[in-house]
């Protein structure tokens, strides 16, 4: 299996009363809340920690894209990925770079996304994993001004354009509804003939169908609590079967928030306040009404969600959720090495997870503690995950990982 270290880039110094005063997206007042020296520090700590994870032996490192958000200040994660691509290359680290990714329902410059991914693939010698989420409603609609009902059509056009731009041997004209280019002949192209695509999504059946039909990896998250949203995994594998895809575990990537220490007691003590703050002030402080602005979700999807809001798990209570609720729902797995390893192994086995991303930094967690988390995961948890992959029988089944970077041509 593949194990990746994943981080968002939150501002780590929010006031204790943040969640009661502010939303974490779109309207959060920058100058009232930010100390410029600390913002600068957070940006560099983020890169330090990602590089630390690469040095510790994770198979890959990953990020996401969000604009105008307190909890993930990565309006263009390709900037950080470019720095990391060079740094890992210079150190001879064969770490995959998973940009998860560039939101294609949002972007008005899909060709630039394709160009940037290609540049990173060149710098890194073919270690890029391309993430193509549709984008969250508030990010595409409120931040980028896309009419909600155009979000998915824009995604569909943009992903088709990017695929053709990366692979087409000939230059071509693109006359789309959202993009008009007289001549597309991208320089550079990616190193990899077919860059692996992982698409983050929250379980919408229409989105899953698109991911399966395009033969990409579905990336799912623990943020809403996998104990409460287990049906999404079942839906994905059922739909894979219905659409003629195999049950290759590498088709699924799962991002799990994790905080590990030597013992349960120590883990709860050192990580607990940071984990609680992260969920309360980050995702928890996104108003529900900004996650699905009218038109963003298909009419049948709205009806389904009203009937069964289960896919949102603990999200509706996250702004005020207690630490115990967060841990009980497994939104974050916190504990000693044994506890964390056992819970992760159970998830991997039950849900058929071939790519496990471990989110290692949470809210206000300082850099030393983040690095400690990364180190311990690499040293003591990752070997047990790899062993469990064999014990589960997945290794013997010889699944081919068709969605892993291929590197430079041999």
């Amino acid at each position, binding site marked *: 299996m593949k194990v990746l270290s994943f981080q968002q880039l939150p501002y780590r110094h929010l006031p204790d009363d943040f969640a009661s005063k502010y939303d974490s997206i779109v309207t959060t007042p920058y100058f009232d809340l930010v100390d410029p020296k600390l913002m600068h520090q957070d940006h560099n700590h983020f890169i330090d920690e990602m590089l630390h994870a690469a040095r510790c032996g994770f198979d890959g490192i990953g990020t996401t894209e969000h604009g105008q958000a307190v909890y993930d200040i990565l309006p263009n994660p390709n900037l950080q990925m470019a720095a990391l691509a060079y740094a890992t290359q210079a150190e001879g680290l064969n770490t995959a770079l998973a940009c998860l990714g560039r939101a294609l329902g949002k972007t008005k410059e899909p060709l630039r996304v394709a160009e940037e991914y290609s540049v990173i693939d060149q710098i890194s010698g073919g270690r890029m994993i391309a993430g193509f989420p549709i984008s969250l409603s*508030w990010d595409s*609609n*409120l931040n980028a*001004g*896309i*009419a*909600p*009902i*155009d979000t998915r*059509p824009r995604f569909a056009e943009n992903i088709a354009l990017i695929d053709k731009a990366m692979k087409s041997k000939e230059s071509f004209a693109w006359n789309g*509804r959202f993009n008009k280019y007289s001549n597309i002949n991208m320089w550079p192209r990616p190193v990899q003939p077919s860059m692996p695509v992982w698409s983050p999504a929250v379980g919408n059946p229409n989105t899953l169908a698109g991911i399966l039909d395009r033969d990409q990896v579905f990336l799912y998250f623990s943020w809403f609590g996998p104990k409460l949203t287990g049906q999404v995994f079942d839906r994905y594998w059922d739909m894979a079967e219905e659409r003629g895809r195999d049950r290759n575990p590498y088709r699924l990537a799962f991002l799990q928030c994790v905080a590990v220490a030597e013992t349960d007691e120590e883990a709860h003590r050192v990580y607990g306040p940071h984990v609680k703050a992260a969920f309360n002030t980050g995702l928890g402080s996104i*108003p*529900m*009404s*900004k996650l699905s*602005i*009218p*038109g*963003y*979700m298909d*009419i*049948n999807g*709205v*009806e*389904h969600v*009203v*009937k069964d809001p289960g896919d949102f798990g603990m999200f509706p209570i996250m702004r005020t959720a207690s630490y115990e609720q967060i841990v009980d729902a497994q939104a974050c797995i916190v504990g000693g090495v044994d506890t964390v390893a056992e819970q992760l192994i159970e998830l991997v086995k039950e849900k058929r997870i071939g790519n496990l991303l471990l989110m290692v930094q949470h809210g206000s967690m300082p850099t030393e503690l983040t690095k400690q988390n990364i180190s311990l995961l690499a040293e003591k948890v990752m070997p047990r995950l790899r062993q469990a992959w064999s014990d589960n029988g997945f290794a013997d089944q010889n699944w081919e990982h068709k969605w892993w970077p291929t590197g430079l041509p041999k």
Partner: protein
Amino acid sequence: MSNTAIITGPQRDEMVSVWNDQIKMRVRIAGKGPPLVYFHPAAGLYWDAFVDGLAQDYTVYAPELPGTTPGDAYAIYKVDEYCDLILIYEEMLRKLGLKGAVAVGQSMGGMIACDLAAAYPDLFSKLVCLAPSGLWRDDAPPAVAELYSSAPEKIPGFVFHDPSLPAAQAMFTLPENPAEIPKAIAQNVWTLGCAGKWMWPFPEHGLRGRLYRITAPTLVLWGKQDRLMPAVLAGEFEAGIRNCQVKLYDDCGHVLQIEKLDQALADVRGFIG
């Protein structure tokens, strides 16, 4: 007439095939007398006491924005551009033989009616706009994005000055049968989504530059406490349309035809005579 009048509603429908037969546009019809076309707002066609009242003296034709008719949600994807939408409405009116009718439009419907009147100056005999969208001022921006991304419970206070009015509350009432609620919510949300194609993030498609083309005598009504489309925009319509009267209502929000029903009906009847 009071705010709690019993609504008669539409009496019949016409399905008008438009846009090279790609769209079947439903037009709801009621009343008798000269033709009057009612253009609904972003929230969809809500047949309220105002429309009912108009139907006492006129034959009211109320077309539904493509995509908002129950059972035909994806018609919205047949319309790519705003200028196409105006052509589609014109085609529907032409096929119904409604040239010379009075036009009444509320909010988004007011914008569509204005653009039709600007594109086809002979299309309407008179034009009535109730808090129309279509214009922008930096110091008074329409708050469409704020409305769309507000929690559902905040919306009545957003569009009504006094959301406690029974008629205001009735507008947001869901079906009594719980089994019907998800479908009703989905329809309401989708209707806003379809309208969002022309309203997001701003309902502004260059109408200001076209207002001068409107020759039909025009009446613009507005609630002074309109939080969605600031009432100061009324003056912009008055300045841009050569034959335009404006009336502002005290203690009134965006949905003025419910909040000031009697006054609005009287003013509209007086104007179109």
